Each structure stands twice: as structure tokens, then as C-alpha cells.
């Protein structure tokens, strides 16, 4: 009696083991990959559509974990997960500036991507390489442009501004005239003025396009305190409360797009994603706007656009690294990038797609963005390495203080230079 009970127990254990191993085996063939990504505009919808062919071909599924749109918030969360060795997330969508900071936590993709690497813009691949390790594969690139309302410019006979000074004058003129005509909420220019990474991008463009360098140069020299940078920030200061609402100091991408897309701004500085959304059916500015390269400042004559863009990296804690790498390769492949460009007006990182006939026909904007992209300037994430976040935070704080009237541009940049010098110490 006793013996048979024991035997039944044993049988049960064997059965359980068999079921478990069957489950495990099947999960190895059809894995669920968790993909985290920030969500701006229609990102999530587009992603779900793009990934369908991969799911069908491989039998695996992708679960998307949406995150807040602020890159600063995302970074904080990802860093926590990664330092805790989180195995729940397999693939991360990473900002172009993160590679040097998170390199230790991601798998090296050099081997996996050796056939396709040469198709991408070399500068982007370089930005994702840290100490010879390819940390992430480029998904799409980003370079901002100046959005302008062609109907309003035509109405007042103004030309598309080539310099920031022209932009200021045109914006002021149109804003005053339109307000007198009854559009009380119309503003001249909206941008990203909140104290966050976005302001670093915007302000880097002002400084660089005035010929004031790029905060920290590629060789590590701190160049931010110079008369041209001061001139750039002084001009930007004059916008707040003038051609830009005072609230611009709390705007990110989506807030400025909100003003723009409700038809309440003449000019906007934003990323390409706003182009497709601005031409959506519910948009008040549909067919009324166009884009061009950002203006230049002073007598510099050369405009600058901060290099943005997103990449996919595979966590080294992933339980299914091979499947995850295959997803990363699929998402960054030529065909997927083409679909992404067609559906979301996001810029491909594959050079040949800029001459693609379908893209030219459906998203005529993208081939033109090649010019914007050629003037792209990187943020100083490579020279400042793990200290980049702090450098960026100091820079945007100095700019934010200047814009909100706490100290002049000259004073704030002088303090910034001193702070950065101290942070740098003997070397970054």
C-alpha cells in the first residue's frame, strides 16, 4: 500500500517533469521577445505593424513595452533595469547618445551585423561603437528641421528665413499682424525649451550655427564659453515672451507640436515625425506647411542640426539572445526601414533608401532631409563618456536659466565653463 503511494508520487513527478520540459522546449522554438521603446506620436502602432512579418516568419512573438516619451525618463529606467540584470526585457530602443554609457550591458553586435554595417551611414555606426564594440544597430536617424507655414509666409510676402535674425523679424511681423486680425493665440516660433535633453539639442544648434562650437569638442576641449555662443543665447532669450510663449520653457517635443498642429505657430523646430502627423486628417495645418534646414546665426552662414535617432540594442541578460538579435536585425533591415519611412516619415539610416522611388513618391520630404542630415552635429556624448548626462544637464540648466532671465548668457556660460572644467578633472 505504502509502496504504491510512493510510486504514484514518483509517476506524478516524472509526468510533471515531462510537461515542464515540453513547455520549455516549445518556448525555445516560439519565444516571446520583450521590446521596450519610448512612444511619441504613432510609434507604437507603426511598430506593431512593422514587426508582423517577422512574427509570421519565425513564429516568435514580440511584446512591446511602451515608455514615456522623455528620453531622460527612459534612460533612468533602463539603467536601473540593466544594473539589476533584468531578464524580462530582451531588446531596448536606445537613444543615439547612450552607447558609451550603457556599452557594458549590451551584447556586441559586430559579428551579427557584419554583412549590413556598410549599408548604413558610417557616422551613425561610429556613434554606436564604443571601444570597438558595436553596441546597437541603427533603427532610424533623426535630424530636426525648421517647419514653416507657407500660407502665412505667402500672405505677408515673407521669404523662408536663412538666418535666426531673419526668422525673429519675420515671426514678429506675422505674429503682430495676425493678432491684430484676431488670432489671439498665434505665436511666432515654438521649440523645446523645457530643462531636459531636448533643450540641449536645441541650444547646441543655436550655438553651433552661430559658429560657437559644440560645447565639448571631439578632442575633449571645453569650448562653450565664447562670444558667439553668448550671442546665440542672447538672441534665444529675446524670443521667450516675444515670438515664443513664456510657457515654451516647459515644452518638450509634443507640447510644441500641440501648438503647431492646432495652427497656432508660424515656425517650429522639431524632428521629422511631426511631418507625417502634421499632414494627418485631423491636423489644422494639413497642406499648409513645409520644412527646410534650420537657419544659421550671425555671419556664420552654416546651419546646424543636432544628430538624433534611435537604435536597437540587445540586453546581455536576455534569455533568448539569438532570437533577440534576429529581431534587432530585422527591425534595422533595409525593407523594414523603408516601411518605417513610408508609414512614419522616419529617416532611414541606410544610404541607398534616400534614392528609393517609393519613398520619393510617398514621402517626398525624406530625400530632401538628406541635406539636413549632412549638416548634423553630434552631441558631445563620445568625448565626455559616462559623464555625458551630467554635462548635458549642466548645459541645459545654464541655457534654461538664461532663457528664464536668471543671469545673463555671458554669466551663465562662464559658470558653466568652470563647472565643466572641474567635472573634467584630468580627463573625461
Amino acid at each position, binding site marked *: 500500500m505504502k509502496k504504491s503511494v510512493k510510486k504514484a508520487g514518483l509517476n506524478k513527478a516524472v509526468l510533471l517533469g515531462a510537461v515542464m520540459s515540453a513547455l520549455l522546449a516549445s518556448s525555445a522554438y516560439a519565444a516571446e521577445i520583450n521590446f521596450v521603446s519610448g512612444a511619441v506620436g504613432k510609434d507604437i502602432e507603426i511598430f506593431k505593424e512593422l514587426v508582423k512579418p517577422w512574427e509570421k516568419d519565425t513564429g516568435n512573438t514580440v511584446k512591446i513595452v511602451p515608455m514615456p516619451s522623455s528620453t*531622460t525618463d527612459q*534612460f*533612468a529606467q533602463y*539603467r*536601473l533595469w540593466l*544594473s539589476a540584470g533584468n531578464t524580462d526585457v530582451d531588446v531596448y530602443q536606445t537613444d543615439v547618445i547612450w552607447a558609451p*554609457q550603457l556599452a*557594458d*550591458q549590451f551584447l556586441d553586435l559586430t559579428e551579427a551585423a557584419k554583412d549590413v554595417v556598410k549599408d548604413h551611414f558610417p557616422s551613425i555606426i561610429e556613434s554606436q561603437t564604443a571601444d570597438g564594440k558595436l553596441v546597437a544597430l541603427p533603427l532610424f536617424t533623426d535630424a530636426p528641421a525648421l517647419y514653416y507655414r507657407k500660407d502665412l509666409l505667402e500672405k505677408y510676402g515673407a521669404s523662408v528665413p536663412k538666418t535666426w535674425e531673419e526668422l525673429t523679424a519675420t515671426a514678429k511681423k506675422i505674429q503682430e499682424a495676425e493678432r491684430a486680425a484676431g488670432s489671439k*493665440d498665434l505665436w511666432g516660433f515654438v521649440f523645446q*525649451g*523645457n*530643462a*531636459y535633453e531636448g533643450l540641449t539639442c536645441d541650444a547646441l544648434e543655436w550655438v553651433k550655427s552661430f559658429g560657437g562650437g559644440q560645447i565639448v569638442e571631439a578632442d575633449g576641449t571645453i569650448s562653450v564659453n565664447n562670444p558667439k555662443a553668448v550671442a546665440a543665447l542672447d538672441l534665444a532669450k529675446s524670443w521667450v515672451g516675444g515670438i515664443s*510663449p*513664456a*510657457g*515654451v*520653457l*516647459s*515644452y518638450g517635443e509634443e*507640447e510644441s507640436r*500641440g*501648438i503647431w498642429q492646432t495652427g*497656432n505657430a508660424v515656425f517650429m523646430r522639431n524632428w521629422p515625425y511631426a511631418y507625417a502627423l502634421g499632414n494627418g486628417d485631423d491636423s489644422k495645418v494639413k497642406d499648409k506647411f513645409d520644412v527646410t534646414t534650420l537657419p544659421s546665426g550671425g555671419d556664420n552662414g552654416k546651419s546646424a542640426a543636432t544628430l538624433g535617432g534611435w537604435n536597437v540594442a540587445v540586453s546581455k541578460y536576455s534569455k533568448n539572445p539569438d532570437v533577440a538579435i534576429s529581431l534587432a536585425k530585422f527591425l534595422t533591415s533595409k525593407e523594414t526601414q523603408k516601411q518605417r519611412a513610408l508609414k512614419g516619415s522616419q529617416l532611414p539610416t541606410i544610404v541607398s533608401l534616400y534614392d528609393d522611388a517609393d519613398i520619393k513618391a510617398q514621402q517626398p520630404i525624406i530625400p530632401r532631409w538628406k541635406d539636413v542630415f549632412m549638416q548634423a552635429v553630434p552631441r558631445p556624448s563620445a568625448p565626455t563618456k*559616462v*559623464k555625458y*548626462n*551630467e554635462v548635458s*544637464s549642466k548645459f*541645459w*540648466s545654464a541655457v*534654461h*536659466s538664461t532663457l*528664464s532671465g*536668471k543671469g545673463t548668457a555671458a554669466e551663465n556660460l562662464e559658470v558653466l565653463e568652470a563647472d565643466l572644467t572641474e567635472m573634467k578633472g584630468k580627463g573625461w
Partner: protein
Amino acid sequence: MQQAELQAQRIRAAMWFLLPMIAALAFVAAYPLLRSIYFSFTDTTLTSLYTGQWVGFDNYLNWRTLPSGRTIYRGTLVDPAWWNAVWNTVRFAFVSVSIEAILGLMVALVLNANFHGRGLVRAAILIPWAIPTIVSAKMWAWMLNDQFGIVNDMLFNIGLISEKIAWTANVDTAMWAVLMVDIWKTTPFMALLCLAGLQMIPRDVYEASKIDGVHPIKVFFKITLPLVKPALMVAIIFRMLDALRIFDLVYVLTPNSAATKTMSVISRENLIEFDKFAYGSAQSTLLFLMIALFVTLYIWLGKVDLSGDKQ
């Protein structure tokens, strides 16, 4: 003899009942606290959580002499950003808790009166407290938005302001915006605790004063206030503890604004964003010490009795 045995047995039994709770507290409260304090004496970063080296008090204060003979001081205790955060937090805590205490008591007095639909009003007034802070902060962020916000719209339409105010962006109004939302959210909590205190006051005291013809204002200051004081003091301690570690509201409404950055916000920034884990731990340790100091001072000065025993 037998009684002593019984006593000892009861104590043993009590120990067994307490043990699970003590173990749980040690695990979720004492261990993380001690570990943060330990981290603050090391050079740990997020990428090297287990290999940090002991550096003594360097994260709090350290100095070195430059070749020129000048001595420079570094560390949290001489960091102006930290002291700015301390000042912001203390200012926020004092203003918000004072206003909430006064408003909460007023609301409690109203709710203590007898009127039709009292139950419904009591439930309704708790709604702001019941909404999660993140949700209400986001809600207010949109209401305070300078262009689409309903607050500006209403003030504009009734002519109180002539141009739209950027509540959360402007350094002069940012702190007020945070205070306003916090007061809106936590006054009901204060009111609830005060109401509980008010209901403990025996009715006959009021009847006697009514017969003697005492002025209502005098009744409030001579009877109600002294009798509700113990409950009020406890409510203030709770709120003070909460206010000194304020994080979520500031983080959602005005992230990164130096005008509202509090101790919790700045220590999180160092811990996670700047990869200065040990430095951030030093700041959270200081935050812990500061809260402990405030509560001790308050209990000592206010002679608050937390034991619940009758004197």
C-alpha cells in the same frame, strides 16, 4: 510565583506573535536603509554595485590642497545644488503643512456639523486624496498648461490676467504651482484626521458652554482647539514626514527646475542619471537624518504623546 511564570509565558507568546512583523520590517525597512548608508561611504556606481571601495566621509566632505596652496572643499555638504534642494524642501514642507492644517481643520469643523447629505459630502471631499499622485499631478500639469490649460482660460476669461501665465515653467510661479496641487490633494487627509479628533470631544462640554452663553469663537479657542490638539499634532507629524520626502509631484510637474528641486529629486538624479550612486546615497542618508531631526524636535517641542496612553 505562579503569576511570574504566567507573565513570562505571556511575554514569550507575544514575542512569537511579533516575530514575523519584526522580520518583515527588518527586511523591507532596516536592510535597505542600512545598505544606502553603507553605500554613502563607498565609491559605488550603478555599474559596479558590488565592488565599491570604502572611502570614508569623502562623499559628504573632502578637501585637497592645490599646488598653488589653495584648499578646495568638495562633497554634498558644500554643494550649492544640495543646499538649494534642502531650502526648497523645507520651504515647501512648512508652507504646505501650515496651510493644509488650517484648511483641514476648517473643513473638519464643517463636516462635524449636522446637515443633510453629510455622508455624501464626507465621501466626496476625500476624492482628491484617493487619486494617485502621479495621476493628479499629470491632470494638473494639463490644467496648468499655459496654452491649452483650463486654469489660464478661466482666469483670462474673467479678466484676472491679461496674458497667459506659464505656471510650471516660470521660476517665480513653479513653487506655487506645486504647493497649490499639494494643498488640493492633501487637505482632505488633514480634514479626516481632524474630524476623527473632533468626534472624540464629548458633546456635553458644548451644551454646558451654550447654557453659559459663551461666544462661539471663544468656544473654538478654549474648548475645541485644546481638545483636538493631540489629533492635530499627530496629523501634522504625518504630513511633515510626507512633505519632507516629496518627490512624485515635483517630478511630474516641474522636473529639473532648480526652483522646485527637492532633496528626494536631487538624490535620485545623482543616484541614477549621473551615475554618482554613492554621492546620491550620501544625499538620501542626509535626508533621512534631517527627517529624523525634524520629528524629534517637533515631538520634543510640542510634547506630543505618541504612545496613546492617558497621562
